[in-house]
């Protein structure tokens, strides 16, 4: 499942990060996204569910749905 499709409160582990634009992937990695990291969709924006806010390790990261599509997550059972 893509991070952009996750429901609020859902949690899982990142299985892949790949974006068409290599700079977006670089940016996602530099701010802390990495394979096997636990993520939780903590908050959603007030208008049209975007941007989303994910809890990643010990940080909170906000990103738009377009960027969230670059991250695949396998949901916790």
């Amino acid at each position, binding site marked *: 499942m893509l991070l952009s499709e996750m429901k609020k409160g859902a949690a899982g582990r990142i299985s892949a990060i790949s974006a068409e634009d290599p700079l977006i992937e670089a940016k996602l*990695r530099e701010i802390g996204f990495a394979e096997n990291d636990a993520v939780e969709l903590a908050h959603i*924006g*007030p208008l049209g569910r975007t941007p989303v806010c994910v809890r990643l390790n010990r940080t909170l990261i906000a990103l738009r749905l377009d960027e969230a599509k670059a991250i695949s997550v396998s949901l916790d059972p």
Partner: protein
Amino acid sequence: MTAAAAATRIALVGAPNCGKSTLFNGLTGGRAKVANYPGATVETRHGRFETPGGRNVDLIDLPGFYGMSPRSLDEKIALETVLGKDGAAPELILALVDAANLRTHLQSVLQLRAIGAPMIVVLNMYDLALRDGFEIDLDKLEQELELPVVTTNATRKAGREALLSKLDGVLAHLTDIKPAPAGRYPAPEDIRAHQGAARRIADAAIEHEPLFNRATRIIDRFVLHPLLGPVILAALLFFMFQAVFTWSTGPVDFLDASAGALGGFVGAHMPAGWLHDLLVDGVIAGVGSVVVFLPQIVILFTFILLLEASGYMARAAFLMDEIMHRFGLNGRAFIPLLSSFACAIPGIMASRVIENDRDRLTTILIAPLMTCSARLPVYTLIIAAFIPKENVGPFNMQGLVLFALYIAGVVSAVLIAFLFKRTIAKARSQPLIMELPTYKVPNAKDFFISLWMRASAFLKRAGTVILATSVILWFLAAFPASATTLRESFAGRIGALLEPLLAPIGFNLEIAIALVPGMAAREVAVGALGTVYAVHGGPDNAQGLSETLQSAWSLPTALAFLAWYVFAPQCFATLATIRRETGSWKWSGFALLYLFTLAYAGAGIVYWGARAAGL
């Protein structure tokens, strides 16, 4: 070493929110110089300090970045300084990492290490990490990184001693290290490799890691709630603007009375003559009328600085992103635009955090529409004179009108942004990837240093631009000596040339005259009106300016004047900043033109609308 004069250049780098400015203020005592590099719009803070071993250090504070793939201008500036593209690479880098966020922050350390930059790794906010329950094996970390590692607690002096004593040791051997080669941005495979290595090292060094900050989790449940969040944001902004107006009453009255008393004292103790008139009517009345608004500027910046330092501002950007996105902006533009409520200049400079050039240009062009504090003197004067001090429900009527003026600026900015994004600044939508920092209690020293920088900048303007224009205007209004009425003076003649142009929007000759020096800075118009009416009415005119205006202006004129000020780009400093940040006078000229067009149209519509409504 005998060359004590040559200071060692040390750059302070690190991710946003890792306590960089607190450490900078702690090391340098907050005495910073803002420096411009020739040929670029780079502006960085420089400070000096001496190590215990007696070495002079030139410390450079750089904008925060997560890694070496820069997207925003801010990040490019930081990286280019580190890589020495401005001519001289720093001799040593202090790489700040949040001790509680090693996994992520070590990535940029490894990227910098890969290009061979001489470096000390500083685990900042170490005390907070320990308090939260972290256990970190520092020897292991030093071993794995093959770099010197120190821990700091930037807020306390004792917390910086380890760093200072390490510095001397490292600086003594600095000549052995090759200077950093001109770097390049890392390739995707390098980023992945550094990410893997950073995690491996962090996992090896971290012995125990606590869960996510509980207080932040609880606060965010409310602050980021899809319904409650925007309500809290709106309430905060509303409270902030009401506070600016109501809390400042006492100090403003005090400063006003002091300026009046000073004018009276000087007036009574000086022989009559042109010098007497220049001091009393020109200098004291002109500068005094602007300095009285210092309390409001201080209150506004207090709010902005506290919201920023507590971690709330990034949440506001998150909440505002989608709505701003739909109007062609970016959530990141929220911070520059909110700063523009204090002053458009720091606001325009803060737009460097916006990654896309077109988004950035749009933000810069609309920043002057945010109601900056320089408009407050004008707004408060007119509101106090023409809007009754009644309560409408629980709200103060004057406060409501002020709020409406702020809203008018915001709404027009939004519409203009929408228009620009479809015409001159077309671009495809740009990404937003932003960290929301853990909430923290703002550091008192950082807060007061920042507040002082803002307040002193305002006073400096009062002492220079406004002093000069007050004197010039007084001269223009008082001479030639043969003039017995205002219309015959130099100012009257210039104003008379403008009057036919401004008469259709309800402006009289005095307004036309006040707008002449008011071109330099908005708040000058208050002093200018004071001077114009004081000279006009002669020395026997003891009425306050506000009462003078009540009898001289109709209500539609007053309202049109307020509308004019929502838009008019009367600030040389802002236009110069736009030129510097966009690299072209073309955009300054464009801003000047479109804002004056809006001002003229807005004032005209308000004037004729108010007349038609029978006001």
